[in-house]
């Protein structure tokens, strides 16, 4: 039998259900891998050793008793540490929340556990999901499993790195402006941001509520389909959850009659090697029977400015609750006012402070029309532009990020870091489903991704297109941690 971390989640649960491997063996195997690699990789903030072994024991007993096991039975899955798992720490990568134990589980966590998932632990992230390199974690930064001198991307960098290194087969992430897709591309794995409202946000610590969406990471698209079949459910505890029938995400390699839009003009200025890889990806789509047409999405050049107004405005409001009074780290001082000011000073890192201040600025009396309302109107124009484009194509194919994973410590200017998200932000602004699938290597030998974006609710098609594309690309090298 091949090593367990070389199994897909689909294969592993099948193998467990057939009795070829026990859940306890799976749990022990992955705990050992985590123990061996996490101190070098930094991908986990918490490891659920007792919880995992207990769950494995229950699964083995269920199997022995021939009880129903669930679609994810025995699959090791990590949870981004801004999502609640009852009784476990939710740090959000912040000193403010160090030691905070979740009083309830997020809906996605409940759904995964109900289907028999073995939760492995909590994945490191940029503080409050604000960052594109995982260098903003208050605890330690995550390394890219393909090259530890490079970043894994962010903000769900821990989730991407631990799947890339084979420390879990699936991980959850949250994607506000690219936080699933960009790290997936950087680590050479698949990341999926569902249609806004497809996956419940209940139990996710909010960053930009109109943009945040939880989604899965996996080594292959088949496992994304498996996990979305479990996670994509209506939830009455999330006011923006869509009441839709549960999807099953069938997979097929046929792309005949599928039309992809390529926003060539918007992509001018792309680095040569990234452009070459992108054009080669379009050729692969064509070789699978798809048609590729030129589309006009020039309005997307305003996405970044719109995003950093709206997401910071929403963040400044969402993070107002962190005051050191009811939970979180309380500064030791004399007065109530000083507690709030000092707790926030000591608890938040520099990037979080920057975004709260920016968000407060754009909402401040006198500036709100110039920034916030203006951005909301440009958002309408972006949503409309996508709608128009989807009259002429079924999905859009574009790069995930302007480069492959960069060296840690090399991007210091915040605006330069924000530009990492330039191709991923538009899907969040319009609430669209988007998948990032490995597409080859850049000139430095790091993975690149192709992003496929579909209309709202086209999750099934986007995942299917991603599957077809994945089958046409030669598998990428996995890096030293994986072997």
């Amino acid at each position, binding site marked *: 039998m091949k090593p367990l971390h070389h199994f897909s989640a689909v294969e592993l649960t099948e193998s467990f259900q057939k009795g070829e491997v026990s859940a306890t063996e799976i749990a022990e195997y992955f705990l050992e891998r985590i123990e061996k690699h996490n101190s070098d990789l930094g991908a986990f903030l918490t490891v659920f050793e007792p919880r995992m072994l207990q769950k494995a024991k229950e699964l083995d007993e269920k199997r022995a008793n021939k009880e129903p096991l669930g679609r994810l039975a025995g699959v090791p899955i990590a949870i981004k540490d801004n999502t609640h798992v009852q009784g476990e720490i939710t740090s959000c990568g912040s000193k403010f929340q160090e030691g905070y*134990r979740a*009083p309830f589980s997020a809906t996605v966590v409940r759904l995964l556990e109900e289907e028999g998932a073995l939760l492995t632990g909590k994945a490191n992230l940029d503080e409050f999901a604000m960052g594109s390199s995982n260098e903003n974690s208050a605890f330690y930064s995550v390394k890219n499993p393909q090259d530890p001198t490079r970043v894994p991307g962010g903000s769900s960098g821990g989730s991407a790195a631990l799947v890339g290194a084979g420390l879990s087969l699936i991980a959850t992430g949250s994607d506000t402006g690219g936080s699933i897709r960009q790290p997936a591309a950087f680590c050479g794995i698949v990341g999926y941001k569902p249609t806004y409202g497809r996956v419940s946000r209940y139990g996710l610590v909010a960053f930009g509520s109109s943009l945040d969406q939880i989604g899965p990471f996996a080594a292959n698209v088949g496992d994304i389909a498996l996990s979305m079949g479990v996670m994509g459910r209506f939830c009455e505890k999330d006011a923006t959850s869509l009441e839709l029938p549960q999807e099953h995400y069938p997979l097929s390699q046929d792309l005949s009659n599928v039309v992809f839009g390529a926003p060539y003009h918007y992509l001018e200025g792309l680095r040569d090697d990234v452009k070459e890889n992108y054009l080669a990806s379009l050729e692969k789509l064509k070789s699978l029977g798809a048609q590729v047409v030129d589309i006009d999405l020039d309005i997307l050049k305003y996405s970044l400015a719109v995003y950093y107004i709206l997401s910071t405005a929403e963040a400044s409001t969402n993070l107002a609750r962190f005051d050191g009074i009811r939970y979180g780290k309380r500064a030791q001082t004399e007065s109530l006012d000083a507690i709030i000011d000092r707790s926030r000073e000591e608890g938040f890192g*520099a990037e979080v402070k*920057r975004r709260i*201040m*920016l968000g407060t600025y754009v909402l401040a009396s006198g500036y709100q029309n110039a920034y916030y309302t*203006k951005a909301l109107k*440009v958002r309408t124009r972006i*949503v409309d532009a996508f709608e128009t484009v989807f009259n002429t194509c079924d999905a859009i194919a574009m790069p995930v990020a302007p480069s492959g994973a960069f060296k840690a410590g090399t991007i210091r200017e*915040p605006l330069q870091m924000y530009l990492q998200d330039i191709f991923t932000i538009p899907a969040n602004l319009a609430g669209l489903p988007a998948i990032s699938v490995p597409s080859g290597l850049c000139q430095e030998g790091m993975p690149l991704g192709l992003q496929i974006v579909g209309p709202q609710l086209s999750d099934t098609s986007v995942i299917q297109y991603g599957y077809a594309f994945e089958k046409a690309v030669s598998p990428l090298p996995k890096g030293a941690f994986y072997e």
Partner: protein
Amino acid sequence: MRYPRLPMEDLDRKTLDYLKRLCRIQLTDAEEKDLGQSLKNILEYMEFLKEVDTEEVEPCYFVLQGLQQEHQREDVPGTPLSRETFLANAPDQIGGMVRIPPVMGGE
């Protein structure tokens, strides 16, 4: 459309102090220097939006227009988490409540 004069050149100590008050955040000297400059750069970048024509365009507050069903739960009490559960993360508590320093004068 007319824009208020943005205090770009005066994203100075006065503006930062005002923002700090609104955000309830104190900054170290190093953070203040770094933040002042980066906020200025980011706000300058955002000026770019002015060139987009948004006459007659409605603001987009919510992206799921038309997709979301009207669902409101029954107006019946649920089972909330217990007081102990809520208080388990409180930094300080007394008699089943969150404890804070006195807010009235001592005399």
